[in-house]
């Protein structure tokens, strides 16, 4: 393990960069793979200079579970927002800000939560206050704040904490 780490400081990122290179070149010829590995090698060492805080990914099952949930929710919220847009004008007046307290403090977990909440139409991450651990959200269909807070805490935050903390 330590030998791999010494040659490749970020093995997962190395793999991701190689795959990206292969996708860009649209081939898996040995030459492409070799050159891709070279590019990825340079890329991962450039990352050392940036010195990112260490991230640990745990529980791959939870990752899959979260991915499945997000996939379903993106479709569901697309449908809901589509209805609001095409429906009567009255339905477009329930938008508003809400705030909730998060227990998660891991930066990567918060980043993933931000991507999830913004990518699902209907919820928009606005700002996070790290000193108080509160998150300001804008919700398009803010009828019941508690329901949204429960959705975010139970559906996403629990799994994200399992993965990142």
């Amino acid at each position, binding site marked *: 393990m330590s030998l791999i780490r010494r040659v490749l400081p970020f093995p997962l990122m190395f793999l991701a960069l190689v795959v*990206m290179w292969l*996708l*860009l070149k*649209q081939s898996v010829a040995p030459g492409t793979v070799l050159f891709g590995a070279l590019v990825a090698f340079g890329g991962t060492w450039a990352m050392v200079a940036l010195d990112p805080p260490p991230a640990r990914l745990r529980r791959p099952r939870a990752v899959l579970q979260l991915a499945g949930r997000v996939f379903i929710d*993106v*479709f569901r919220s*697309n449908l809901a*927002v*589509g209805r*609001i*847009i*095409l429906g009567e004008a009255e339905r*477009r*007046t329930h*938008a508003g*800000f*809400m*705030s*909730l*307290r998060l227990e998660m403090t891991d930066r990567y977990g918060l980043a993933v939560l*931000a*991507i999830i909440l*913004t*990518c*699902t*139409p*209907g*919820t*928009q*991450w*606005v*700002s996070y*206050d790290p000193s*108080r651990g*509160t*998150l*300001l959200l*804008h919700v*398009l269909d803010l009828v019941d*704040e*508690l329901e949204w*807070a*429960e959705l975010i*805490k139970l559906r996403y935050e629990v799994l994200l904490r399992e993965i990142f903390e």
Partner: protein
Amino acid sequence: MSEAPDLPLWAALLVSVLVLLGAVIALIGSIGLLRLPDFYSRVHAPSLGATVGAGCLLVGSMICFSVLQGRMLVHELLIALFLTITTPVTLMLLARAALHRDRVERNGDAPERDPEPIDIA
């Protein structure tokens, strides 16, 4: 009328459905950009086209080129990955910029202070 590649019938039907669905969703998102009443509501609209809209079109494109060239061609995944990372960044930055401006101007479009946070044990 645009030209089109010669695909087997099943693939042509599948790609057609996906392309039309993606375009319809992107269109709904853009209609939302026009119909929603205030800026913070409008921020929600572009993510329709950028998630499921783009997803449908990209899967359609993947099927089309994979069938045409007789091998797996999934480079569209890169665009999908790129979109999922960039869309939240732009929308979040815009929302924060708008909040910052509205609070500095005190024009009543945004709350002066954050609402009381909800605690769920």
